[in-house]
């Protein structure tokens, strides 16, 4: 399928002033020419097809926003090629803006003091949406969310959840090819998160809109994304299916134990006996992370049973969250 977004070897460098300390340093900085080059995005390539929902992940400061800004045309890449729906975004920012929708979790594009419906009408004129398409879209929205509760409400009086919901609806209003969602569920309660996820999923299904989602909430990723891309320090670490990711790290299982008697004593014993697994503990459990490609969980359990009396045990599959955490912390190797 024709890709909606193509990135080839995109690199972005920033020139940053080396700031000095203290009042004297700040004064010197006024005339300083001492710049350093900061590479925020380093040789990233990817193709994204129509209708995909891609989770774009990475720790804070990994270069996610910078990449998104280049995709939307607000930033110009230092080198590399980028095409969104056939346009070079930074050269044709206005034209590109017509084809995309953007939601920044903390920033609203809606008219603050006006009821939502007025914002929609303004957007209709700005994006030059045909009346029929506009009405169809509103109908679709009405079938997905309870519009009565938000449509006449001024944005400033909305709860954070309603505002995010409204912002997402506004971003999809002109039926863009691509929608960028930057931490859409940040600060929302559990039920609102679920509603937002359902909405995004439904809109993606209905309109075949490509969605790029950056988030720190693995719940979002599990609920929405089939493909994930992970970057850190500007470099791409992973770009594949979410199943593949789990498979990749799925050889790991966590065996959780609660022993009779003293826990730290038992932990010491286990550490001494079980050599090919890593052992840690928290207030309740001793966790033994077993790499099943090296040794079986049952075998480890057997070994432990011989030295420690077990009161309670659990076996846990590794979650997406833990996988991501491992990747952020540097590669699949444990600890």
């Amino acid at each position: 399928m024709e890709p909606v977004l193509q990135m080839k070897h995109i690199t972005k460098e920033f020139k940053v002033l080396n700031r000095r300390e203290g009042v004297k340093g700040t004064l010197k900085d006024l005339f300083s020419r001492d710049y350093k080059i900061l590479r925020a995005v380093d040789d990233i390539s990817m193709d994204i097809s129509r209708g995909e929902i891609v989770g774009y992940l990475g720790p804070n400061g990994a270069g996610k926003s910078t990449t998104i800004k280049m995709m939307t045309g607000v930033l110009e890449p230092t080198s590399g090629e980028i095409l969104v729906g056939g346009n070079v975004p930074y050269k044709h920012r206005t034209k590109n803006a017509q084809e995309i929708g953007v939601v920044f979790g903390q920033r609203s594009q809606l008219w603050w003091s006006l009821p939502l419906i007025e914002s929609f009408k303004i957007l209709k004129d700005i994006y030059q949406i045909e009346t029929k398409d506009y009405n169809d879209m509103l109908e679709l929205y009405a079938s997905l969310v309870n519009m009565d509760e938000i449509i006449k409400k001024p944005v400033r009086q909305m709860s954070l959840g309603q505002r995010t919901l409204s912002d997402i609806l506004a971003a999809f209003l002109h039926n863009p090819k691509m929608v960028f969602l930057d931490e859409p569920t940040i600060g929302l309660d559990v039920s609102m998160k679920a509603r937002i996820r359902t909405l995004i999923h439904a809109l993606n299904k209905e309109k075949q809109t490509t969605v790029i989602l950056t988030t720190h909430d693995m719940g979002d990723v599990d609920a929405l994304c089939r493909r994930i891309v992970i970057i850190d320090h500007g470099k791409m670490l992973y770009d594949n299916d979410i199943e593949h990711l789990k498979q990749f790290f799925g050889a790991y299982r966590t065996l959780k134990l609660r022993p009779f008697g003293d826990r730290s004593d038992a932990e010491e014993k286990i550490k001494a006996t079980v050599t090919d697994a890593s052992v840690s503990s928290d207030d309740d459990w001793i966790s033994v992370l077993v790499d099943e490609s090296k040794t079986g969980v049952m075998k480890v359990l057997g070994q432990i049973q011989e030295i420690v009396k077990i009161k309670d045990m659990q076996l846990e599959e590794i979650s997406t969250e833990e996988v991501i955490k491992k990747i952020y912390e540097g590669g699949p190797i444990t600890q």
Partner: protein
Amino acid sequence: MNLKKYVALTKAGIMENLTYRLSTFIMIVGNMLYLLVAYFLWKAIYASSGTDYVNGMSFYDTLIYLTLATALFTFMEMYIVWEIGRNIQSGQIVRDLLIPMDYRRYLFWSYSGSLVTHFVFTFIPTFIVICIVTHGAIPFGWNLPLFMLSVVMAVSINNSIDFFVGGICLYTESIWGINIMKQVLVALFSGATIPIAFFPEPLKTITLHLPFQAIYNTPLNILLGKSGDMAETFTGLGFQLLWCVVMTLISRGFWNFSIRRVTVNGG
């Protein structure tokens, strides 16, 4: 160019302005209070000067000139520079750059609603009150449509100046000082605080060659029928048009050059 999307922004601006009803009423009342203060202040000045004419202007001339200049000032002072500054510091500019519209146009048209409301709620009431108080010292005729034309050009020049200053803010990332300086310069050289006729000679000549006086002085002189014959009126308009074009070119060029700083360096 599709006008509809710009008009949508104007409408939004008007609606946003009128949402805060109390603020609208205070705007009208506050303006009337200013009128009262100006009336008694300049009455006192003229009373103490002992003559009816100061620098060729009668009390009514000065009163009309200053109150209308202030009314124009409140409606034309667009705070676009503040807006740009705030947008840059908060990062909102990134959001606004993603509207499928030229950023300058977007900001200007977003503000146009507030222009319209201020025109209706401060300038027109002032104008009516002044007409009544001065017993028809303002002529009614061709000067009115020409005045409107002149105001439109004045708005354009003012907008260009604002964007020029806004462009500087893209480098400094802080605007307070620069904008205050701009406001003082514009207020002084445009004749909004003191009529240009009161300026000492060399300063007056310099002022008349700067773009600022085309913002308030020219439209007011046209409205008051000060500029005697048609020829002088059209010279004023021509002068305005010239500044309009020059300032648009300068500020557009500078802005487009500067905005690259945002897109290249991320602000």
